[in-house]
């Protein structure tokens, strides 16, 4: 394989030689080792190598880009010529640009190579522990992979970054079955730096597996009422996705975002603070370089309820006249609250502990509805029983404002750190 640094430099030169006024080339070499479990059995060991070469050309204000997965000089030259041809075909736009020059830097995180024996040991241990502790549990699928990415970004403004990241990721999907009755499936993913800890103790795996075995026998919630919903860390990311989508390029350029005029305004309860921390120690599966070619920095998205930044790209920033974000978002960390989860549960008269949400995409206004999966009914401050066929609906923008408490406890998934969050005023529809 061609050296990725040389390929990136070759790609940049090829773009400029082909006539680009401004050019950027990103080359990423990806090596993945993945152990797969299907239906409770270790089924497949997978080793894949790939290369991504992303070539961006701007000529006369027109932008074109191509992505190929070959890094030899002939392929890169053809890709560069195609990027120029696409730029020629494009529409001029003053907002098209590439990152300005920054000091060259090299970023490194995680291991360089996988420990295949430990991968096999930890996966086997997970399956055996699950069988022993949760005999009704069925491991539908599980994957443990080690992925190493070597990324090089160079551009005609002098950007010269490289990043090497090695990370293990485990995903497990499971259900439970007993006497012909089956639970809903549930699943979780976690990113980890090493294999020092048993997988079952990473993220929320142990809790979700235990809960799934409790969910074979469910009850219906009766009637329709407005209540409190405690959103578990496992589905907080889904609930925050509306905010994330609404402060990005598409929603802000099209002008449809409900937050388009909300910078430094209250968009959530003052108990919520949300950060994007792609380069923090608590996030092992973050990133160092933004998609525009900037060195990524951590940022605060919501500070005690106030919206502090949009997630605009360089293009989106120039198009809207608003500030460019210092990162690409993601790697979300929600600050812990003052109360314990137990205390929050005790404060709920009637509502749900929402562990998984299966819902339609919210509309641009934030209206949502969907099914509360793997979830529990709460009454008089106690978790009563697991539920089925229960829908919830509301408006996510209102939900953010109606957050009344955030738990002290949090779960670190390696790609996000989330607490339990209690929201008032959600419509709950049982049978």
């Amino acid at each position, binding site marked *: 394989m061609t050296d990725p640094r040389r390929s990136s430099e070759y790609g940049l030169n090829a773009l400029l030689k082909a006539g680009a006024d401004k050019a950027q080339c990103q080359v990423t070499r990806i090596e993945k080792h993945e152990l797969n479990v299907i239906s409770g059995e270790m089924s*497949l*060991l997978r080793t894949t190598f*790939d290369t991504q070469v992303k070539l961006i050309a701007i000529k006369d204000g027109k*932008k074109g880009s191509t992505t190929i997965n070959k890094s030899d000089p002939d392929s890169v030259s053809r890709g560069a010529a195609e990027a120029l041809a696409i730029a020629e075909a494009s529409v001029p736009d003053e907002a098209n640009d590439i990152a300005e020059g920054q000091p060259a830097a090299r970023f490194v995180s995680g291991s360089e190579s996988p420990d295949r024996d430990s991968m096999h040991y930890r996966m*086997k241990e997970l399956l055996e522990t699950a069988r022993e502790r949760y005999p009704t549990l069925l491991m539908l699928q599980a994957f443990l992979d080690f992925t190493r990415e070597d990324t090089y970004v160079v551009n005609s403004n002098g950007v010269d970054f490289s990043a090497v990241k090695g990370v293990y990721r485990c995903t497990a999907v499971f259900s439970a079955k007993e006497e012909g009755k089956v639970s809903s499936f549930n699943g979780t993913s976690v990113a980890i730096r090493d294999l020092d800890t048993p997988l079952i103790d990473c993220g929320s795996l142990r809790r979700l597996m235990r809960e799934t075995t409790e969910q074979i026998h469910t009850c219906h919630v009766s009637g329709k009422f407005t209540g409190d919903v405690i959103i578990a860390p496992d589905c907080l990311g889904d609930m925050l996705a509306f905010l994330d989508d609404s402060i990005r*390029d598409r929603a802000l350029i099209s002008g*449809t975002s409900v937050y388009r005029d909300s910078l430094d305004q209250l968009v959530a309860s003052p108990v919520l603070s949300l950060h994007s921390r792609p380069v923090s120690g608590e996030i092992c599966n973050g990133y160092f370089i933004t998609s525009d070619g900037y060195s990524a920095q951590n940022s605060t998205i919501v500070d005690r309820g106030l919206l502090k930044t949009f997630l605009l790209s360089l293009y989106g920033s120039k198009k809207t006249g608003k500030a460019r974000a210092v990162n690409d978002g993601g790697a979300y960390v929600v600050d812990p609250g003052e109360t314990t989860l137990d205390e929050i549960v005790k404060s709920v008269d009637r509502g749900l502990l929402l562990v998984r949400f299966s819902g339609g995409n919210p509309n641009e206004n934030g209206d949502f509805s969907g099914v509360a999966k793997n979830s529990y009914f709460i009454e008089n401050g106690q978790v009563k029983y697991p539920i089925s066929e229960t829908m919830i609906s509301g408006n996510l923008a209102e939900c953010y404002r109606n957050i009344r408490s955030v738990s002290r406890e949090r779960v670190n998934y390696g790609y996000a750190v989330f607490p339990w969050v209690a929201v008032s005023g959600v419509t709950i529809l049982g049978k």
Partner: protein
Amino acid sequence: MGGLDLKAYAGLFKTYTELRVQENRTIQISFVKGNNTVNLRSATSGVSARAYQNGSWGFASSPELTPDAIASVVKEATENALFLDSRERKGKAPLPVAAVSSDNDFSTKKPRLGQKELVDFVRQIDDEIARRYPGLASRSVILRCLDMEKTLLTSDGSYSHSMIPRSQIHVMLSVEKDGAPVELMESYGGLGQFEDVFESPSSLWEGIERQYQHLMKKSEGVFAEAGVKTCVLDAELAGILAHEAIGHTCEADLVMGGSVAGDWIGKQVASPLVTLVDFANTALGQTCPVPVYVDDEGTRAEDAVIIEKGVLKSFLHNKESARHFGVQPKGNARAFLFSDEPIIRMRNTGILPGTSKLEDMIASVDDGYYLIKPSNGQADLTSEFMFGVTLGYEIRGGKLGRAIKDTTISGVAFDMLKTVSMISNDMKWLGHGMCGKKQNIPVGMGGPAIKCQVTIGGR
């Protein structure tokens, strides 16, 4: 990809092995409110091998297509299978043998358009929408094209080549109502390369006008009344129901994972009006949106009848699960990228048409909803499902009433299918479906309209 003769590598196989060379080519051009926000092409190609040893699999892939790289992935896949076998010692029997030959190429015979012509095509649509509908708050027009070209050789004698393209234009229209956005998306296109799917921008005007009229009604829409209602689900919703709520629960890997369908083969699980099929490549004499002729394990693709007249008949299999259940595989093992292993997937899943007319079905509902467009959908091993609905109307006294705001429907599919009382006599396919089970992959979903009882969300 041209010029590679995979048969020359058959001598490298030490055990059951699949060797696949694949290229996925994409085009994306986006206009958001007149701004050309995306203009790109990509190509992802490479070679992969998957080897089987006593119940353990090894897989390897490389983006390089040189003889050395091909030999290397076969060797690494074999070593991975041996590594896992040395640890697991499952001692399972050999896989069912398949030996078929096939070549299906849906490349256009017309001259290919260049990027500038494609950009101009999309821009003309965007310009025309801006001219016709000046009151819109926003609009997006997105062209997405995907060509998937595969060549496969298996150690048991299958050899196939396919080039399956799809081309779609997604149009999103948005208006503002009382300070809040209301939007509606529609997708146009389907199987084929751009030149075969889209004749001219004007061929979309009629559909976009219909979309705009629906949007105007939706902007005056009301919240659905939450509860269990009699609904007529139009073809797109019936299709997503067939895929998400029934199809997934009948995939053999999910059956082994505890799906409720596992205990119900031969049992009545739906109204006798319901016959549900996972079509391989051709349905009712027409080529399906995602035709599969030979799957990525080298099995000849055949239709799989999942429910026949309300009785659960079969599951969907790869070679390994077919051996486990003692049946023949029907070509459901598919991979999206060259670097993906084949897993059990649907192809084109739909309920067969009935005998009723859609207007009679609507007229028969006293108090309910006519639901037309889904957004996303999810289902469960329990067959409990949820679909987003982005377009629908009230039915009052057998007549269509006000449009409704975005909502969600849910239910337990095997219960809900027992309430099906009418099925329309037509069949429409949703040609832009993507299924996200580990790997995203194109699927077809379709059907007639069905009348049934379903829980609808609302306020």
